[in-house]
């Protein structure tokens, strides 16, 4: 098996992938402005556009070639070394035991060239995530085994084994086409609609000149200027938008969860999915800091959900590495939880604790009401007194807060802490005491007056929040959490 002791470059095919990546990033940033520039001017700008565009492509090509040529990686004395840069030489040194996860990805082009993209995720804030755009399939597998062995050694206590671990996989879940369809149809279409609307509004000014050039769009725009916005028209527009959104939402879900398979061996979870691009991730059990599983209203009714593995060092904004596993039965949740914690606190103590009812009024008066008042004032200039209708949301939000408060429960046990929150959908979070990094008890002036507090248990994979609990209870939980954290030398990772 290859040992990577000599510095080596990526596969030559990586040049293409790197070029494509940089090109996509650049074009993604400039395309609306470029369209605006191209269609917005009357005089012949084609040549200038061609020169700028051509120059940009040449620049990207040179940068890609330099990046490719000067980037070399190797494994030496238990460290992954990555050297890069022409003028500014940079060496990234990552101790192998600091590596959190190794992900292999294979797009259609990777499949054709028998290569893999390798993503190496680290926890530290100093080291950056390492991306190898393409290396030969057998090299990728060898690299993954070496890194995984090192990661496991740091947990096992140092047995110096270089062999490939015995693979005794247990299938936890595999999303079939029916499950995928259910997941697609039950996605939060309103959220997708919001994202699309935000995107269109954000780019509208840039692509405005394009609208004026294309007759159909121009006609539509002029029609919209003269159109009477009756309720029928508005309803039709909403329905059309919703249908478009649903189609986009379904495509997104298909791309994200197609053939989603979760298996486990004695070390960690092996996750594989993808329609166009096949991705594989390995998450060692010890890297999981917290677990949460959630369902929206519809998914809750049909027994679907998403289970999120909160892994150390994983930033929320790294959407690509987001670890949300589609769940189609409660047994799957139970199997995954077993690897994190032997039992659920909610099972040990069924009653659980509630948060204080002040939560309802605090949110209603200090968050919702000021927001609605500002919104109503703004809307008054457009809708006059009709803007007051916005304030009808206030009692509804109060009802929603009451429902949330009524359903909220948390449980404390010897093993950890668990919370359950629900309005229309539901969200459950489980935290093992051993994964706490530090404890924070917060009191607003309002909470102080009522003898309440909000408790935050910070972990390397996010924070666990218990809002509006009794201050004394918060202190008691803090003391217990500190005792559980400080009385053991058990590794948190």
């Amino acid at each position: 098996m290859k040992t990577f002791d000599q510095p080596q470059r990526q596969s030559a095919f990586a040049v293409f992938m790197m070029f494509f990546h940089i090109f996509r990033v650049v074009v993604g940033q400039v395309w609306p402005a470029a369209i605006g520039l191209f269609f917005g001017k009357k005089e012949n700008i084609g040549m200038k556009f061609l020169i700028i565009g051509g120059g940009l492509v040449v620049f990207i090509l040179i940068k890609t070639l330099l990046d490719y040529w000067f980037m070399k990686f190797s494994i030496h004395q238990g460290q992954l070394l990555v050297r890069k840069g022409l003028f500014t030489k940079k060496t990234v040194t990552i101790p192998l035991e600091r590596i959190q996860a190794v992900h292999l990805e294979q797009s259609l082009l990777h499949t054709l060239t028998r290569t893999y993209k390798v993503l190496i995720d680290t926890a530290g804030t100093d080291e950056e995530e390492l991306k190898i755009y393409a290396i030969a399939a057998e090299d990728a597998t060898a690299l993954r085994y070496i890194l995984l062995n090192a990661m496991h050694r740091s947990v096992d206590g140092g047995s110096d084994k270089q062999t490939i671990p015995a693979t005794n996989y247990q299938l936890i879940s595999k999303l079939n086409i029916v499950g995928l369809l259910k997941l697609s149809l039950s996605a939060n279409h309103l959220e997708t609609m919001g994202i699309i609307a935000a995107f269109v509004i954000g780019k509208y000014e840039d692509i405005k000149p394009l609208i004026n050039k294309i007759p159909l769009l121009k006609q539509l725009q002029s029609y919209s200027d003269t159109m009477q916005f009756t309720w029928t028209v508005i309803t039709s527009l909403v329905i059309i938008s919703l249908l478009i959104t649903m189609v986009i939402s379904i495509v997104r879900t298909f791309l994200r969860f197609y053939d989603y398979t979760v298996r486990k061996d004695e070390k960690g979870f092996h996750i594989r999915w993808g329609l166009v691009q096949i991705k594989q991730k390995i998450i060692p059990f010890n890297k999981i800091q917290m677990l949460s599983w959630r369902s929206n209203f519809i998914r809750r009714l049909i027994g679907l959900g998403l289970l999120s593995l909160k892994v150390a060092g994983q930033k929320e904004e790294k959407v690509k590495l987001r670890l949300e596993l589609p769940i189609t039965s409660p047994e799957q949740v139970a199997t995954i939880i077993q690897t994190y914690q032997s039992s659920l606190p909610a099972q040990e103590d069924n009653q659980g604790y509630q948060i204080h009812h002040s939560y309802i009024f605090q949110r209603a008066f200090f968050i919702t009401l000021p927001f609605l008042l500002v919104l109503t004032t703004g809307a008054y200039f457009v809708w006059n007194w009709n803007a007051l209708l916005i304030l009808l949301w206030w009692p509804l939000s109060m009802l929603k807060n009451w429902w949330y408060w009524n359903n909220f429960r948390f449980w404390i046990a010897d093993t950890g802490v668990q919370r359950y929150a629900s309005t229309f959908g539901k969200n459950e979070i489980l935290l093992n005491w051993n994964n706490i990094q530090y404890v924070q008890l917060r009191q607003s002036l309002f909470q102080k007056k009522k003898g309440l507090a909000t408790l935050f248990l910070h972990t390397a994979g996010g924070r666990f929040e218990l809002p509006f609990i009794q201050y004394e209870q918060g202190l008691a939980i803090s003391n217990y959490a500190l005792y559980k954290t400080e009385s053991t030398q058990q590794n948190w990772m």
Partner: protein
Amino acid sequence: MSFSNLPITDTSLPQVQSVPFKSIHPNYLKVLRITWLITFGIILAGLIVLFVFVTKLQTTWFISIGIGLFLIVTTLTVVSGTRSFKRKKYAVRERDILYSTGWLFQNTHMVPFNRMQHCVVNSGPIERKFGLASVSLYTAASEGKDITIHGLRQEEAEQLKDLIMQQIQPLQLHENI
């Protein structure tokens, strides 16, 4: 296994009072006031330049809004900063550090030594003038700010850093933190 988490006494941490929570140095309020004076002075100068050179802004409306916003932000910063200063207290125990801060939102942070990655002593020019420094505590927590204890005397900050490093190192020998 017996477990204890008693407050560390004066003899273990020189020049620290025996009370569990210790207030930060009073001179830190001066540091804050000088910082505010410089910051808001620069903002005020910027606003004056803006109103003098941009003729479109020379209306009663804009000037009133500008002055109003400036006064609101300044007052809020000074009031909350001063009130918060009075609540900044810390305590060092055998196995953790406790730090209390904030006015509108009063926070108590409890950071176990066996979760600390490292700590840093910072000292800005104004703090140095008053012989003060701050100690930042770093854990692997992914959300929330790093915890910084401001307004410590320079030597006190160094002692605290040494103490933290002493506490972290034996733990790191036992485990991979």
